[in-house]
């Protein structure tokens, strides 16, 4: 029980560090730590398949992509442009207002205190695979087309444009 609160505190701490650190490389590293705490949350919820996928896809692939682009642009210095203090305070107040709205709507919501049905075998690979390949087969195939088109689009966008290079 206390493990959940410890990990929740760590995720909030690391995500605050992500947005308040000046150096972008440190921000990426703190974001990796945040995603690791998400993996621990998934394990605590007994969603082991998603924990492993989160570990591999987010921490392995996406964050390395971020770090690679950041290092490639040579932006790892502290002198990046920051917004003025007035705009920062306004942004924090706007985010805080959203948080207050969400929390007050949660207060109005009546949810059951603890889990009612304790079918804890849901998140295992076998059960999730059965659901994925029986009920959600068509969305699964469509997402493969989405990934293919994203790959083609990324290559097309990042390719050097001959006309703008010469003129």
């Amino acid at each position, binding site marked *: 029980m206390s493990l959940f609160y410890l990990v929740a505190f760590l995720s909030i701490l690391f995500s605050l560090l992500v947005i308040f650190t000046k150096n972008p490389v440190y921000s990426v590293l703190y974001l990796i730590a945040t995603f690791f705490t998400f993996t621990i949350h998934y394990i605590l919820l*007994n969603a082991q398949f998603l924990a492993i996928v989160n570990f591999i896809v987010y921490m392995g692939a996406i964050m390395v992509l971020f770090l690679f682009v950041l290092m490639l642009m040579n932006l790892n210095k502290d002198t990046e442009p920051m917004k003025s203090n007035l705009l920062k305070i306004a942004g924090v107040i706007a*985010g805080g207002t959203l948080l207050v709205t969400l929390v007050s709507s949660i207060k109005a919501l009546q949810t059951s205190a603890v889990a009612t049905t304790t079918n*804890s075998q849901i998140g295992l690979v076998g059960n999730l695979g059965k659901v994925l390949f029986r009920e959600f087969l068509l969305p699964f195939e469509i997402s493969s087309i989405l990934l293919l088109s994203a790959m083609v689009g990324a290559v097309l*966008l990042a390719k050097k444009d001959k006309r703008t290079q010469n003129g």
Partner: protein
Amino acid sequence: MDNIASTIQVVPLNHYILLSAILFSIGVMGVLIRRNAIIIFMCIELMLNSVNLLLVAFSAYSGDASGQVFVFFIMALAAAEVAVGLAIIVMVYRNTSSIDINILNRLKW
């Protein structure tokens, strides 16, 4: 296995909703207060992940596997989004030598 699964029997669902709301708001704040395009992109990832955590919590508490399948699809979509978005940021950096979003207001004309 048993003591792992017992976590959802002592932590109320409200605390998961609260945690996700806090993380989502931190993501919104990050989008509002930073000017570096890559940091803004990372904050969008943070918001997507907080929604993922909420979906997994709902799925585990109600005993329905559909929520975790949705999270799987959101992860596939996030991977595609990161690939295209970072390609666009590289393109912007190549044309303007900066990833400051204030420079991008020239897109208006």
